[in-house]
Structure formats: structure tokens, C-alpha cells
């Protein structure tokens, strides 16, 4: 584990998480949540959990984003908060 990369990506994960819950357009929220999952996947790959990392990259960043965007296209795209 290289702790400098770990700290940088941890800070990026937190910033993206704050962005995800504060953006009003739900389609942007879905895409940004994919970015969040991918940053989390990088964090786990750095910590040596490669099996968890590629499961998260395929399932968390891939399938979750597809689910979210499909649900957003079937409902409304705007949010009040």
C-alpha cells in the first residue's frame, strides 16, 4: 500500500460523495455516482484487495450506473434538493 496515493484518492472519493448528494440534476448524479464507484475501486486495488476491486468495477461502476440511469429515464430528471 502506497499511502500517498491512498490519501489522494480518499480525498477525491469524499469530494465526489459530497458532489453526488448536492447536485440537483439526477442524470448528473447517476454519472457522478459511477465515478464515485470507480474511485472506490481504485482505492481497493491500492490496498491489495484486487478481487473486491474488479467486482466493484464491473458490478458497482457498471451495473449500478445502468440501473440508476434506466430508473431516472423512467421517472423525473429534476430534484428539488
Amino acid at each position, binding site marked *: 500500500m502506497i499511502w500517498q496515493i491512498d490519501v489522494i484518492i480518499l480525498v477525491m472519493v469524499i469530494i465526489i460523495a459530497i458532489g*453526488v448528494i448536492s447536485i440537483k440534476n439526477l442524470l448528473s448524479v447517476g454519472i457522478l455516482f459511477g465515478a464515485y464507484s470507480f474511485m472506490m475501486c481504485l482505492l481497493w486495488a491500492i490496498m491489495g484487495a484486487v478481487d*473486491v476491486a474488479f467486482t466493484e468495477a464491473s*458490478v458497482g461502476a457498471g451495473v449500478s450506473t445502468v440501473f440508476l440511469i434506466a*430508473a431516472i429515464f423512467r421517472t423525473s430528471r429534476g*430534484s428539488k434538493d
Partner: protein
Amino acid sequence: MDNYLFFIVSKFNYWGVMILIMIGIYAIISKQNLIKKIIGMNIFQTAIILFYISIGSKKNASIPILHHLNEHTQKINPDDFVNPLPHVLMLTAIVVSVATLGVALSLAIKIYQQFGTLEENIINNKIAADNNRQSVIDRL
């Protein structure tokens, strides 16, 4: 004082986990939009998974694949590899989190078809109005 500072800095992964958990709980409790609540739940779950992976990792260790012996003792040294047990547990948790995401999103779509909105306060007002109308009809 130096001891406390070392304690705070050396556990930075756990501080990140705590911040992410607080962001998730804040989104679940205070956001009105149902999609935002679901995403807050997912952030919470990934923070818990990050906590478990942080427990398993250690300094100067490689990934848990057996490819070399220790150069001094010519034996397998467990300190050279990260602990793979939390990884296996969290592999299950990732699959469960996708399943809960799918169920929650399908419920949100059904709620949208019923009420025409995803905002929780508007849905509550509509349910209250429906109940009032029903009670008036019952009294008649």
C-alpha cells in the same frame, strides 16, 4: 500531544470511512428526493466495505496470491500478504448492495407511477389528502 497527533494521522483511512458514513446518513435522513436517499444508502454501504478492507490491509504486504517465499527463511511468511478473509466477506456485500439498489429503484419507479413525483414531502401530502377524502366519504 505528539502521541495523539500520530494516532489521528496514522488512522486516516478510518477517518475517511467515518466522513463517508456521515455523508451517507445525512443523505438518507435529510434529502427529500427518493433517488438521493437510495444513493445515500449506497454510499453508506461502500463506506462499510472500505472499513473492512482497511482492517485487512497491512504495511509492506503484497496481494494475497502465493508467488514467492520469504528470501531470508525460505518459507511462507503471512506478514508478506494482506489478510484475504475480509475481502471474501466484502465480495458478498457488494453483490448484496447491487441487489438492494435494484429493489429500491424498482420501488421508486412504482411510487412514481402511483404519485407522479419522487419528492417525499409531496408524496406525504398526497397520502394525507387521500386519507382525508376517504374519511369524508366514510362519514357520508
